[in-house]
Structures are given as structure tokens and as C-alpha cells.
């Protein structure tokens, strides 16, 4: 028996992990996420914004299918919050594979909000604008930060409409009119570009960031130094943000972050179990091998 367990086929472990992930999803099982102060900071930043003061939130979705699992739920909860607060949003990306999300995410949220509040309207051009994929990396970010007329600098949205004809950009001139920069990515380089270049000598916009789990330890440095005003740590950050939204808006349709976060927790417990189990079996096996060596 011990021999069989020590030589356990790795595919059996894969099966257990997949089952641990699949069962909470199949039964839509969810637990309340842990409280995350950094996500709360992000929430408070948006909650304190007054839509009457004008300006826009610049939201950069720099993720593709490879980090969609964590970044998309983060982007959804923040965009939903901005839309609920009626803060105009300009969406863009520096990552080509994210173009699809720039269209699908706000449209989906607007449709949900209009179902929740019959009679109220969230519409393209007034509540959000899709600027599409913007190549150029740091040169683009720097030129945007220094621009005297952002609408002229960015010219057109993804559909070819001049930004001067869209009400989102009516009162937006310089970086000072960007009241919030929200960036979601698993790519450290794109995030660094905004930290380094999206500022002027006398103005740095409020910066909220959604990172993948891999980059959490690195992102904390920026939170500690005050370069970030809020942080969503992987899917757990999105889940806690979602919980905060649900507490405030009781009729809100729950998003996927809760179930993903629960499934992730169950999968972690499974892995911790296998790590402990493997070490115990390894120790027992080592002791046995050692005693055999001694006896021979």
C-alpha cells in the first residue's frame, strides 16, 4: 500500500486537482471572500469620486486570454463601479489580444445595469468609449501624458468616430482631466510604463491596478510607496471588490469572481494536502530506505 502511494501516478493528482476545481463550479458553490484592505482602498477611491467634477477614468485592459481568468473579473467589477457612479470611461489597451475585451466587458455590464435599473440608460459615447489597441508602448504613454489635447492626440475611437464628436471627451483636454487611471494586466512591463511615464512634473493621476497572482509580491512595493492608490490582488481582490458592490447594491447580479475564488480556494487546499502527503510519504520512505542501508 505504502509503495503504491509512494509511486502514485502524477495523473491521479491531476485528476484530483481538476475535480477540486470542477465541483464548486458545477454546483455553483461560493463562500464569502476574505477581506482585502488594498481592494477596499481601490473601492474607496472610486466611491469618493464626484461625477459632477467632470473628467474621465482611463481604463487600460492589458491582458489577453492567458490572464483572462484573473484580470477580466477585476476589470468587470471596477468598470461596473465606475458605470454605477456615472464616471465616463475611456478604455484602451497596449496589448493586442485584449481588443475583444474592450468591446465585450463594458457592453455586458451596461446591459446588466439596464436590466437592474429599467428606464435608465448607459450608452456608448456618453458613458464609455473604446479607444482600441494603441501601439507604441512607452512612447504612446508619454505622448498621452504630455498632450495638450487628448482628443486630438488619440483622434478616433475603434469605430473610426472622431473623439471630438463623443461626449465622453467633451471636457477632456490634458492629463489633469484623467481623474483615475485603472490598469489591469499580468504583464509587468506594461504596468511599469504607466508608473514611469503617465505623469507630468506637477500631476500624477490616482492609480488603481489589478494584477495577477504571480505579480502580487511585486505590486505590493508600489502600494507601499504610494505609487498605487488601490490594488486588486488576483481573483481574491476581484471577489472582495464584488462583495463590496453587492453589499451596497442589493439588486446586483453576481459576477463570476465569487465562484472562481471559491474553486481556487478548494484547489489550494487540495494542493496543500498533496504537498503535506508527499512530504510525509517521502519522509517515511526515506527513513525506511535509511534503515535498510544501515541493516545491509
Amino acid at each position, binding site marked *: 500500500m505504502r509503495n503504491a502511494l509512494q509511486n502514485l501516478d502524477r495523473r491521479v493528482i491531476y485528476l484530483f486537482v*481538476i475535480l477540486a476545481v470542477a465541483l464548486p463550479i458545477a454546483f455553483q458553490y461560493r463562500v464569502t471572500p476574505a477581506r482585502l484592505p488594498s481592494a477596499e482602498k481601490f473601492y474607496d477611491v472610486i466611491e469618493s469620486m464626484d461625477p459632477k467634477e467632470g473628467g474621465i477614468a482611463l481604463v487600460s485592459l492589458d491582458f489577453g486570454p492567458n490572464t483572462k*481568468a*484573473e484580470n477580466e473579473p477585476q476589470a468587470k467589477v471596477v468598470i461596473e463601479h465606475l458605470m454605477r457612479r456615472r464616471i465616463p470611461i475611456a478604455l484602451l489597451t497596449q496589448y493586442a489580444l485584449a481588443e475583444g475585451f474592450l468591446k465585450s466587458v463594458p457592453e455586458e455590464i451596461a446591459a446588466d445595469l439596464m436590466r437592474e435599473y429599467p428606464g435608465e440608460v448607459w450608452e456608448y459615447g456618453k458613458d464609455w468609449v473604446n479607444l482600441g489597441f494603441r*501601439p507604441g508602448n512607452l512612447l504612446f504613454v508619454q505622448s498621452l501624458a504630455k498632450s495638450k489635447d487628448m482628443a486630438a492626440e488619440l*483622434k478616433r475611437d475603434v469605430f473610426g468616430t472622431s473623439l471630438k464628436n463623443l461626449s465622453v471627451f467633451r471636457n477632456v483636454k490634458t492629463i489633469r482631466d484623467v481623474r483615475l487611471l485603472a490598469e489591469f494586466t499580468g504583464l509587468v512591463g506594461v504596468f511599469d510604463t504607466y508608473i514611469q511615464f503617465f505623469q507630468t512634473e506637477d500631476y500624477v493621476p490616482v492609480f488603481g491596478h489589478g494584477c495577477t497572482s*504571480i505579480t502580487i509580491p511585486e505590486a505590493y512595493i508600489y502600494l507601499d510607496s504610494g505609487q498605487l492608490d488601490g490594488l486588486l490582488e*488576483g481573483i481574491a481582490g476581484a471577489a472582495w471588490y464584488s462583495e463590496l458592490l453587492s453589499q451596497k447594491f442589493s439588486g446586483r447580479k453576481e459576477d463570476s469572481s465569487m*465562484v472562481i475564488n471559491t474553486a481556487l480556494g478548494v*484547489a489550494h487546499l487540495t494542493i496543500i494536502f498533496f504537498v503535506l502527503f508527499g512530504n510525509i510519504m517521502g519522509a517515511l520512505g526515506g527513513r525506511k530506505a535509511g534503515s535498510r542501508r544501515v541493516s545491509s
Partner: protein
Amino acid sequence: MSANAWITATVIVGGISTLAVYSFLIKENPFYRFFEHLFIGIAAGFLPVLTLKSLLWPRVFEPMLGLDIVQFPDGTFSGEYHSSILLYFFPMTFGMLYYCIYSKRFGWLAKLAIGFALGAQGGLAFKGFFAEMLPQLGSSFKPLVVIDQGGHALIWQSLENCFFVFTLLAVMYYFFFSFKRDGKVGEVVAMSGRWLMMVCFGAFFGSTVMARLALLVERVQFLLIDWYQALSNILA
């Protein structure tokens, strides 16, 4: 093909691709190999099209040819054509010197373009480094004894700051190779730095496992909800 049928087909293909990639977990197989090559091919084809569609055409050729100027129904134009935009031709030509790298005779011309790119990137990196690091440097100067407005010492916050400063100095000292570390205290500090880094690497590794599992969760969710739904629709 209607929009709904198109979405269903996309979901079905997505599900099959996901299963094909995960089939590698069982063992190497032709099904996995086929999809691996398919992904590489798509990625290789995607980039040139994207560069042309999102950069060269709208940012370079369209303005140079004046095609971005629209005529309104009242006969007026959305903008004026400035012939100075034709100056784009010079940096473009200069950038094209990169391709001289394939010629033995004109290879030296590529060095001009590479040198320019290196210089420009170096300058920007220099500026970026200071913009990123200076606030972090400033925030590392933390008070070792934190006192609130009432004059009371905040024990926990003070301990946190002390630990932060010790970690910072210990790790920096570990990487300080300018002279030989002889003293016992120096060795202990350097060893502490090493252990603290190990804790950090453990955190990084844990985060990596978490991120990889999140990818799996998203795929399983896609298979169990979207893919299953699409399959049910087809079978029904």
C-alpha cells in the same frame, strides 16, 4: 451564418482546443501536437496583420495619403492635408536600414538604426528608472518608532517598520561583495538576508501556483458552463 451560430461554433472550437491542450497531461499525442502547431501558426500570422492594421495603415500610410480626411455632406472636410506629413518617409527609410543586416556589404548601415534605437531606449529607460524608483526609495525611509497624534507609541506599526528596514538592509548587505565579510555580525546579517529572500521566493512560488490554478479554474468554468451549453444546444 447567423451571429448566434457563429458564437456557438467559436465556443465549440474553443472547447475542443482546450481539451486538446490538456490532453498533454495524459501523455504526448498527435491531437495535442496538431493544436500546438495550429496555435503557433495563428500567433505568427496574427502579428504582421496586426502591425499593418493597427499601426502602419492608420498611423502612417493613411495620414500620408490623406485618406483620414473625410468630406462631410455640406462639402467641408474634417481636416486639412499638410504636406509636411510626407516627412514620415525619412524616419521610415531610416528604420528600414535594419534590414541591411542581411547584407554583407551594407550590414554596417543596420548599425546606425540599431544604435539610434539603443540610444533612444537607453534615455527613456534612464528617465523611467528614476520616475519609478525615487518614490520607492523615499518610502523606504520609515520611522522606527511610530508615534500617533496623542504622543503614544504604536507598537505594532513600529515593529513592522523595524522589520522592513532590517530586511532591506540585510538583503542589500547579502549582495554587497565589495569586500570580504569577516565579522560574525556581518555573517549573521547576510545569512538573515538570505533567509528573508527565501521567504520572498516562497511567496513568489505560492503566487505562481495560485495564478496557474486560476487559469485552470477559468478553463474548467468555460468547459462546464459555456461549452456544455453550446454542446447541449447543438445536440438538442
